[in-house]
């Protein structure tokens, strides 16, 4: 029972760096056979001819807003957006209301996720109690309750001593720390990248140094303590250089980007207004080039989303009052295809490493991120060629705050299978 047979696809095997033409047989939620010409009368067939088949995508940075801000997103709407986007696993950021800072809250969130039961929902827990940046959470107890990482995302950890002790302490539990870097004393009420655009539009600026100086501090801390530290949503050229230098010194530091920081620069504010208002702010073309080179050189090993859904009310009106963030989970994959495959920055094999294999390794998900016998049957199938228009009003996410409306993109996920269950078939959600 519960057999699925994926026929005639081009299989992407990131774990062994190979691409092969073969079929995949799934039985009871597990990949049981990979070879050409499989026949199984009892299995449900999916024709993947002309498509790319690989391990489901894993997103290290989403905001599902539950508990507390369900009008922006909830576990159900967010999970459906993930399925549509080809993501079979997501890591939720813990800056909810209340923040996920206790074992009780993380147990609650994970039991809610099981109730929803679509994609694999993992959660980070906060670094500091109440996201206040003062005292560290019970991270061992949080890990035992299911936390996969620690992050005060949305805020920078300002207290150097707290972070120093946390990094030292976290080594005992091998729990990775995800950092949102922004020196708030410098960033202040900044709205957009520092430079000509801020001057022209008359907006207060969020300078690159606010990000770079904190990344520099925390690279030193990570290197000294030996902690596993991940810098999320990188946006600047200098941050790539800094991280690369410390990686070469042996620091256990990794990084991710978002698709919007690769596709849009600060000039986009003119066209998209507050829909392009995001933290960190959209930078300039030299940064985009440096980020892409950082991806090619492996300095940035993970592609994430920073899917940040908001209500229309929160994004409309006064630019200075509008919320930061972009809703992008269901178009993250085609956006990255445009940013990185179209200009041949990376191969499809690399693409799958950056979006599935590497994040699985980072989260310690040993049964995910590889297309291999015995692995969980989490699978994404992509149509690499056909262009479709982005229609934000058809997003299943509650967040319609997205500047990419109307863009023509290719590389859309067509079928998504999670734990052997087909949740999207031929571009139609079955969840």
């Amino acid at each position, binding site marked *: 029972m519960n057999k699925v047979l994926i026929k005639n696809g081009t299989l992407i095997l990131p774990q062994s760096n190979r691409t092969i033409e073969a079929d995949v047989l799934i039985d009871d939620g597990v990949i049981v056979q990979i070879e050409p010409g499989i026949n199984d009368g009892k299995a449900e067939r999916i024709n993947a001819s002309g498509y790319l088949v690989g391990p489901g995508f894993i997103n290290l940075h989403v905001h599902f807003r539950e508990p507390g801000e369900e009008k922006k997103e909830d576990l159900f709407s967010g999970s459906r957006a993930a399925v549509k986007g080809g993501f079979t696993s997501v890591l939720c950021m813990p800056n909810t209301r209340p923040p996920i800072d206790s074992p009780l809250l993380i147990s609650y969130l994970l039991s809610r996720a099981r109730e929803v039961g679509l994609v694999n929902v993992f959660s980070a827990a906060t670094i500091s109690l109440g996201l206040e940046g003062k*005292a560290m959470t019970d*991270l*061992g*107890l949080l890990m035992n309750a299911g936390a996969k990482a620690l992050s005060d995302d949305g805020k920078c950890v300002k207290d150097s*001593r707290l972070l120093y*002790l946390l990094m*030292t*302490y976290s080594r*005992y539990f091998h729990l990775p720390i995800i950092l949102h870097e922004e020196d708030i004393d410098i960033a202040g009420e900044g709205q957009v990248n520092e430079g000509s655009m801020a001057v022209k539009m008359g907006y207060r600026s969020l300078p690159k140094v606010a990000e770079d100086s904190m990344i520099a501090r925390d690279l030193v801390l990570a290197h000294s303590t030996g902690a596993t530290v991940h810098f999320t949503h990188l946006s600047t050229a200098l941050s790539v250089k800094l991280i690369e230098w410390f990686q070469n010194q042996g620091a256990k530091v990794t990084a991710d980007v978002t698709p919007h920081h690769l596709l849009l620069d600060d000039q986009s504010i003119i066209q998209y207004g507050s829909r392009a208002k995001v933290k960190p702010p959209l930078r300039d073309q030299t940064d985009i080039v440096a980020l892409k080179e950082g991806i090619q050189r492996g300095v940035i090993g993970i592609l994430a989303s920073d899917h940040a859904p908001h209500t229309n009310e929160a994004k409309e009106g006064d630019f200075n009052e509008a919320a930061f963030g972009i809703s992008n989970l269901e178009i993250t994959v085609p956006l990255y295809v445009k940013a990185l495959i179209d200009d041949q920055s990376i191969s499809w094999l690399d693409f799958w490493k950056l979006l599935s294999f590497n994040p699985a390794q980072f989260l310690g998900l040993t049964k995910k991120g590889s297309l291999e016998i015995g692995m969980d049957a989490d699978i994404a199938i992509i149509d690499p060629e056909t262009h479709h228009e982005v229609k934000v009003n058809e997003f299943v996410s509650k967040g319609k705050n997205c500047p990419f409306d109307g863009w023509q993109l290719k590389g859309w996920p067509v079928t998504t299978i999670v734990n052997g269950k087909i949740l999207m078939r031929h571009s139609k959600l079955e969840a």
Partner: protein
Amino acid sequence: MKWKHKHLLGIDQLSGEEIRFLLEKGNQYREWLEQSPKKLTRLSGYYLINLFFEASTRTRVSFEMAGKLLGMEVVNFTNELSSLNKGESFRDTVRTLARMKVDALVIRHRSSGIPLYISQFLPFHIINAGDGMREHPTQALLDLLTMKRDGIDFTRNTVAIIGDILHSRVARSLSIGLKKLGSQVIFSGPPTLIPKGIEVLEGQVVYPVEEAIRQADVVYLLRIQKERQEAGFFPSAKEYASFFGLKEKPKGPDGRWKKIMHPGPVNRGLEIDSSLVEKENSLIEEQVSCGLAIRMAVLETLILGGQTDE
């Protein structure tokens, strides 16, 4: 043996042979303590000052009793009574004491190095009863005596010291003493409380705590002070107890229980589960009796120079 040290400032100054000498003498006193009434006159006419600048009950009482059992006159001098609170400098206070013409001074102070400092100009025997984060030699000696009396062969023995190594003078003195007698030492606890540079103590750092306990014959738990949590070294008492506290009786591969030790006072339910404190494999209460015996041995050896006529 001829005893060559005027003071006992730290375990570091002692040789293995000297430690074994003190343990042997301490062992005799430990036996002798079982009899009643007990009173010796070996040090009668000698004067001892207990000078404690840091709160302590058990160590101060232990020294006081040790002195009195040997026939000494003991004067207690605590911080609250001292002229330091009247604005006198530490150096002047100590120089005033120097004119009191006593024979021995037991001192505890929150600053590392104070016993060494005063030993440079005070004319009598100085015994360090704990200085800051540096040394607590009589604690280490009493721990070693407890182990010796339990039948432990130091040359085939591994002790896991668990907890706040960073701030602990007990961990420093004990590990130094153990190494001098040929034992292996393991440190474990929250990484925030295990200092960089610990290699100097010649122990292995082993994570996690369960693995450190598995490798050990004796599990030595350190007291966790509440202010360490307030200072952010670990997040909460609950988390500490869950991951770094001893929750069950540790058993060796041969089925025998491993010994549990603790310098006291114990935080029941934090570094050690309450039910384990008084279990038969716990040496914690015996440590107190050995403390009295070893302090008698130390006082006698320093004052009489190691020559005793039984």
